[in-house]
């Protein structure tokens, strides 16, 4: 959907982020395990756009010779997430 120029990537990022946060509330207040699992799946679904197109957004911002550095930093951020999860 972000490939349709009317929406662009930024709109998708913001909207899915808002929905992501609200579905996490659903996870918090789940009454049974089924509800929890369903909301977990939905949060994953709505959290994905930035993972897929974050690299493309970063590549747009930097000149070709500098894209490598920005991509590497983005990769560090992507790996730090799961590593720091249990710590937090």
């Amino acid at each position, binding site marked *: 959907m972000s490939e349709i120029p009317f929406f662009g990537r930024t709109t998708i990022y913001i909207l899915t982020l808002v929905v992501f946060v609200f579905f996490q509330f659903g996870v918090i207040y789940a009454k049974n395990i089924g509800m929890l699992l369903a909301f977990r*799946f939905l949060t994953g679904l709505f959290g994905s756009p930035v993972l897929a197109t974050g690299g493309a957004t970063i590549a747009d911002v930097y000149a070709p010779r500098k894209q490598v550095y920005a991509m590497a930093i983005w990769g560090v*951020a992507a790996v730090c*997430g*799961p590593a720091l999860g249990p710590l*937090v």
Partner: protein
Amino acid sequence: MRDLVRDSTLGHILHAISGGKILGWEEDHDHNALSRFVSTGDNARSMDTIELVTSRTSESRHSNEKPSESDVDLGNSNRKSSESEVDLGNSDRKSSERDPDPGTSNKKSSESEAEKGKDYELIDWLPDDPANPRNWSMGKKFFVTFEICFLTTSVYIGSAIYTAGLGGVIEQFHVSETVALLGLTLFVGGYALGPMVWVS
């Protein structure tokens, strides 16, 4: 920095509420700012057509090159050879379903040029355009990169943080560890399937 606020969600909301007065684009203040995009001799259109045309840059590129004219009218018209010129005088452009057919898209181009495939128009950045992300200052680029990285990290953390609360889930819902781990599995499955919907 003003551009960052203007492009954000808050900026768009303020712009919509105030009708362009707060954090306006330059077209709101100066109605002639778009004149450099309009080629002379055609019907001058409003900003609506520019948004319509620039919204189609990804799918088709119609060129309206007329080699003889552009060589002659170098100082005269706004039509440069390959830089961003939007031909707004084409009333056929209003319907997107006529887009894929280059032959009938532009009334002004002759039949032979259409057949040769020369009736496309390349829409590109202006030189030194401040809206082009490649031309931003380093601070602005770093800020945007930091935002993207932070968002990526926070989504990935959402998957890993669940393992810390696994014991609580088992205790509260009285399920086995395997079922509780489904919470983690489904989250990862969700963000694997998500791009199929959102990105393509």
